[in-house]
């Protein structure tokens, strides 16, 4: 912010100087050749030194802040591992063992240390209201830290162009009181909620029969151990679908499952040969299939 005000001040000063000069020395009719001044050493020294001083002053907080943001402060911290994929966020809490996707829950007031790597191309982790961004690379780990001081839901998005659906690679950070956070963790560690209604039950078996298990894990559903796509064990409890693209509700779920390319062009679910339901006519989803799946997935709180 300091920089902005310095910049604004400089702009106004130089701008006024420029406008004043142009007006004052506008050519008048009959005016002869003005005095041919070639330079002034004093002025040169002056207007070299002043910028140096201003920039030098700016450099000090710059370096200090740069060091501040690069390492998390000493003390308690919670580490979260993030693996960025085209175009979703795989999230793991190494201490508790929670695995989820596209939504981070963090306890308010705690230093969070995010360790990140990419499964494919370069991505970038950015929650504008909480911290600057940090790029994510295949083959190495980068990290950033933040601390949410207020209970709130923060919007995040990928900030390095990563392909067709880069725009739709978003996520949410929910900062909550520590008790709520721990309750959430416990819930995440449990197996998936068992289906109760007939649609949900049918949906669970459709999930297996139509090959969703090739890419997705749902703990407690036999065979659903795929790790190519997000972990869906508790997806019904998340605020959004398809990496922050749409709010979680049954209508949106239906829209997503009916035509994923419409929601997220080029997405892997609808285009990969591994995804039988979308690329193999023998496994195509019927309207009834989709209704049942919607019910089932929505029930996975």
């Amino acid at each position, binding site marked *: 912010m300091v920089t902005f005000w310095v910049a604004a001040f400089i702009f106004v000063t130089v701008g006024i100087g420029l406008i004043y*000069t142009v007006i004052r020395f506008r050519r008048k009719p009959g005016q002869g050749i003005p005095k041919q*001044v070639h330079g002034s050493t004093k002025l040169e020294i002056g207007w070299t030194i002043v910028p140096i001083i201003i920039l030098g002053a700016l450099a000090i907080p710059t370096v200090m802040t740069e060091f501040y943001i690069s390492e998390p402060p000493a003390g308690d911290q919670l580490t979260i591992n993030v693996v960025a994929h085209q175009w979703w966020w795989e999230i793991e809490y190494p201490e508790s063992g929670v695995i989820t996707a596209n939504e981070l829950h963090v306890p308010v007031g705690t230093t969070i240390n995010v360790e990140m790597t990419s499964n494919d191309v370069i991505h970038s982790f950015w929650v504008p209201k909480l911290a600057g961004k940090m790029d994510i690379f295949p083959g190495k780990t980068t990290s950033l830290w933040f601390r949410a001081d207020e209970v709130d839901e923060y919007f995040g998005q990928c900030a390095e162009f990563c392909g067709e659906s880069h725009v739709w690679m978003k996520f949410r950070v929910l900062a909550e009181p520590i008790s709520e956070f721990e309750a959430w963790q416990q819930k995440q560690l449990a197996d998936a909620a068992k289906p109760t209604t007939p649609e949900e039950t049918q949906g669970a078996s459709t999930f297996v029969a139509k090959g969703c298990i090739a890419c997705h894990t749902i703990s407690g559903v036999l065979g659903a151990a795929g790790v190519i796509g997000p972990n869906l064990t508790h997806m019904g409890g998340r605020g959004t679908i398809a990496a922050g693209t749409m709010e979680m509700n049954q209508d949106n779920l239906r829209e997503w499952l009916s035509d994923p390319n419409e929601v997220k062009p080029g997405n892997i679910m609808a285009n990969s040969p591994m995804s039988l339901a979308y690329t193999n006519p023998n496994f195509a989803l019927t309207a009834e299939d989709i209704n049942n799946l919607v019910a089932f997935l929505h029930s996975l709180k």
Partner: protein
Amino acid sequence: MASIAGALRRPTSPTGLWRWMTTVDHKKIGVLYGVSSFLFFLFGGLEALIMRVQLARAGHDIVSPEVFSQLFTMHALTMIFLGVMPLSAAFFNLMVPLMIGARDVAFPRLNAFSYWVFLFGAIVLQSGWLLGGSPNVGWFAYAPLTSSSFSPGNGMEFYIVGLGILGISSVAAALNFIVTIINMRAPGMSLMRMPVFIWMTLITSFLLITAFPVITVGLIELYFDRTFGMNFFNSAAGADVVLWQHLFWVFGHPEVYILILPAMGIVSEVLPTFSRKPLFGYPVVVLSGITIGFMGWAVWSHHMFTVGLGPIANSVFAITTMSIAVPTAVKIFNWIATMWGGSISLKTPMLFAIGFIAMFVIGGLSGVMHSVAPADAQQQDTYFVVAHLHYVLFGGSIFAIFSGIYYWFPKASGRMLNDRIGQINFWLVTIGFNLAFFPMHFLGLDGMPRRQYTYQSEMGWDLWNLVSTTGSLILAIGILVFLHNFFRSLRHGEIAGNDPWDGRTLEWSISSPPPEYNFATIPTVHGRDAFWEEKYGHDGMNVPASVEASNATEEGHHGIHMPSPSYMPMIAAIGLSVAGYGLIYHFAASVVGACITLVAIFGWAMEPPAEPTE
């Protein structure tokens, strides 16, 4: 005298199209560069307009994300490599020999070669639109998104081969101008008596020859990965994909100085002329340019502040970046001081030059904001960067180029561009430009990332995007006004005469347009602003003596022998392009292309630069 076993007689007095295709005259080559690059500039502008229409509203679906990504990639590539750079080259070609009192450049055929290679390289780069898809990974094309697995198809090949060929053009031209400026100055024109535009051309040329090899290596490495399965950017084999970013930006940062220094040179000529005062602090302005040229090598990682290089690296690059603001600021102060106490005429060239100062200050200041590395962690990859880069590249380079066009069009064509229409041009462009790009500062700080083909309405970005799009349309109208002025003036423009602006430098001492040989007698120079001295005496204040027409008519050649036209440069360029397409489609074509180029080079070496007059 025949060349290549008599198969291809050297053109003797070609006319019409052949005249243009075999010319080695720097003035014609300058026109070729100017016309081609302006067409590409318009094309790049069209790409921008499509994007702006797409972004005018949330959720718009004028174009698909795939097409949008090709648009933002090609818009940048077109504007930088086929717009600003060759427009600068147009000025180098048209003006450098005239301003140093020379008859042509050191290597006229190499000069023609540079142009044809540029044109064919541009065609290769643009091939994707017709041949299966343009590159769609952003103009800086970060690995591994550019690998064959994530970018199948030929888009990346057009990028690699296109830029590779364009690099050859730029390096050849730069070599030519370095030798020309160092070795062909009129007697008495020491380095510190050269016009500042010449200095900036010299510095830019040195930057070109040192920076382009670095990106060439990067392009080669990417090509090898994609074509031969090598491992330069293969993280599975232990490679670091950030290597691409280092190679790219070690080139990329000097590249932006390549884009701005010629513009600064133009403005350094226009301001004194229209203030009727010499450039204030000439040695300091020159030294600042040299300093910027050197320091430009020390700042590249400010494009990589969010890559996790560590606080020490980030701090070092933040400080070097801030340092480069000092010579830049010094130049701006010297320009304003040039006007101070002068007699300012607000003709169109001057309007654009003053506009340049204002816009460049804004762009420079947003650059300083970026140099604060921790702040950049928020600003990087957002519309704040887009605002900054357009203020310096459009508000800077393009404004200066328009200034140069209005200033030197009379010299090149013999006619004046209409000044009233020019004023309308200027104001439409200025208003449109600022409406288009100033709001992007707000969008960036409000969290809108760049390279997004659409956005959601809840984000609250609708209003500024709409304002921006409106501005871009006004800007486009301003450009159309320019085109109208250009075509109208070619036919009906007021006759310019030698020296319509009461200029200070040598080009104004000869006719408009100049004769083929430029100067009937090479002038002897006694100081800076040599022509002004000649007119007004050493203190510059005398009443102008009647300056004798210093050029002979066409009959009296005075035995001046100009270099002869040649087919070889164009043939060599064709060979290069065939070879280039061969690298994309089939290596056999590369062999054929290489042979064509080799034959052309032999022909070139065998024919003398100038045929004896029959």
